[in-house]
């Protein structure tokens, strides 16, 4: 669509007053004063998140604790059928039970725990 610059200028002049910017008169300062402080905002969000996670964990623990006697009862009732297992090639597990292997396994486990806690709690740990 072609635009006629002369006519556009004419329209611009015509609307000059109509769309003239409004003088500030303290508006900007008022807006800036109304802005939420970033640290307070972040703090509120963090507190809310911690409360949700803490509340969820406590609720989960309580539910799990109430179910514990039923679980124990269920396990005690279990009768494992005597099934004859086919002979498997014997696997020597002793290398995995050496001290260095146990240390590596413990470190790996701690790494997993640290990673998952970082995901859940961020840098608030």
């Amino acid at each position, binding site marked *: 669509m072609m635009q006629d610059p002369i006519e556009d200028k004419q329209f611009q002049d015509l609307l000059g007053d*109509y769309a003239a910017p409004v003088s500030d008169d303290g508006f*900007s300062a008022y807006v800036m004063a109304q802005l939420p*402080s970033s640290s307070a905002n972040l703090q509120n969000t963090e507190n809310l998140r911690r409360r949700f996670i803490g509340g969820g964990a406590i609720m989960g623990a309580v539910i799990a604790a109430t179910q514990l006697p039923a679980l124990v009862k269920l396990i005690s009732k279990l009768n494992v059928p005597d099934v004859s297992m086919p002979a498997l090639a014997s696997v020597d597990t002793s290398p995995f039970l050496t001290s260095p292997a146990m240390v590596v396994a413990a470190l790996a486990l701690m790494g997993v725990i640290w990673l998952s806690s970082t995901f859940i709690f961020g840098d608030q740990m």
Partner: protein
Amino acid sequence: MQGGLGHKSKRQFEALVYAHQGHIRAFLRRLCRNDALADDLAQETFMRAYQKYDALSDYGAAKAWLFQIAYRIFLDFIRKEKRRKNLDDERQGELPETPESLPEIKMDIERAMNALPAPQRAAIMLNISHGLSHGEVATALDMPLGTVKSHIARGKNSLRAFLTAYEKA
């Protein structure tokens, strides 16, 4: 983004508010035809802009971006208002914000512009008065480029007719 900015960004945002508040308020005043309401919507515009400020990648596009937020807030307000009571139609043609002391031509321009539907008025103001390109107007008003061009063409036709009538008179 949690609705807060770093110190430096807050300074930049403050500069943005000072630079554009006049245009945004003028734009909203012409859309709302109520200065106090327009200023409330303008304040809401800057609040929302503050929350989304990190999403603004091109500072040069800030003006169009602010107009976009302002227009969305205006549309939200109109929708809520229409839902609550159908005042919008009653307000048509009232022109409560046009003081009688204005020179005749200015009042006539106001009448001519106010007679346009809000999207057409917004497109004309953004394009002619605020110097936004057709593409920028399309972004700001969330409209297809073709629709914007058509709004602007129709708006110009109305203004052209007004000018011709005024010259004859």
